[in-house]
């Protein structure tokens, strides 16, 4: 993967430079596709989500503000929102019940996720079970804090504090 400085990349994208697009793709597409696939479960739908996200990113790159967070987090939020919109309002998938988000099931239905998940879950396994669960639902599956509160039947404030602690714990084990 080519190491790239964010301001140069952003400027290249504003200038519609093909090399910058290729760099963007090589550096970030797999991470974004991983998120889209975890949320939508279906390769073809995840591909559509990735396309929508890339179009939004590319057309709005001049709005990216580095003081609000990293470029990746900005792109990730665009991609997560596109994926969530797709499964909630799109025609491709009517409903994704919580229980189908089980990882074992994902791996069975989509073997491509298996390898990526094994790496990811190895790291997340170092977390306290409760914290792992809320981070998984919030960050990797796109549930809002309110929804997590309903799914896990815990107070809204507890969801927030668990996510905060989970991110802090992760910072220690994966600094």
């Amino acid at each position, binding site marked *: 993967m080519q190491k790239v400085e964010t301001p140069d990349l952003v400027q290249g994208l504003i200038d519609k430079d093909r090399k910058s697009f290729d760099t963007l*793709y090589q550096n970030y597409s797999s*991470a974004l596709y991983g998120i889209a696939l975890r949320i939508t479960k279906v390769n073809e739908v995840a591909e559509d989500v*990735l396309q929508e996200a890339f179009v939004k990113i590319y057309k709005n790159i001049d709005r990216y503000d580095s003081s609000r967070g990293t470029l990746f987090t900005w792109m990730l939020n665009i991609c997560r929102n596109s994926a969530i919109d797709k499964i909630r309002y799109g025609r491709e998938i*009517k409903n994704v019940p919580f229980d189908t988000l089980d990882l074992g099931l994902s791996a069975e239905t989509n073997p491509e996720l298996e390898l990526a*998940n094994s790496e990811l879950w190895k790291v997340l396994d170092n977390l306290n079970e409760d914290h792992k669960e809320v981070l998984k639902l919030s960050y990797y599956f796109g549930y809002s804090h309110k929804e997590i509160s309903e799914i896990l039947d815990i107070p809204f404030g507890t969801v927030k504090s668990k996510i905060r602690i989970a991110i802090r714990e*992760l910072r220690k084990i994966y600094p």
Partner: protein
Amino acid sequence: MIDINKYIQSGIIEEYVLNNLSEVDRGEVERIASLHPEIANEIFETSESLSLYGKLGAVTAPAYMQERLWEAVNKPNIAPKVKTTNAQANKKIKSTNWAKYSAVAAFSLITFLALFWGVKASNKLAEIEATVKQLKTNNEEINEKLIVLQKLVDDNYSIYRLPNIKLVILNSYKSKSLAILIWDKDQNDIYLDIKVMEENDVEKEKYHLWSITDIGLQSRIGTFDYKSENRIIKVGEVEGAVQFQVTRESDMNVKRPNAANLILKGNVGY
């Protein structure tokens, strides 16, 4: 004076980075961050951490995606905006409308002049007027039909837009009937979208919808009459079932679905 530690501990930074805040709350976090470098730094570090975790779950997209995305981003007029202010949106609509109105007005004027002079020259004004009148009438009729059709679609298919539904195909080779059962899992309501089925004789018989549970318990969800114009019918409520059946019965008090009267059947898939 803000307690910086308490603010950081509140979890709002994580919500900000995960994009779970309203626009007003986001603005407030940014305002506070601009006043307190510790908070700005916390935003940056949290964002950095989450970037790394995002990359941990990476899955390589198919090779053809790189070219497909390049083509997509270069297509004109497909720019979904991440966020546009209301003022910008209104301005855009306004300017687009003006352009449209101007174009339509110019086109109408040219068409009118051409028609006028053309008709005068050929002395066929009456004939063209009649044609235009006929076209106008046709257009109005089509518009009315479209409105009716749109209402029909909205009325009939809004059920399919419910957020948490389960669909079960009900069919029967014997009766050559077909329906889609729509189970609203949030309200436990059961609807039938009937595609092919005979109308029943309302004086003598009714259709009965039955649920069968995993331990074989058979319960009537409700009864209904079918007229071909009633596409989607709400039949009743159910909490759990592994199979649904529709029978046509002349005995209203029948306790169980009678196999001889079976019209439709479908299993709930998982």
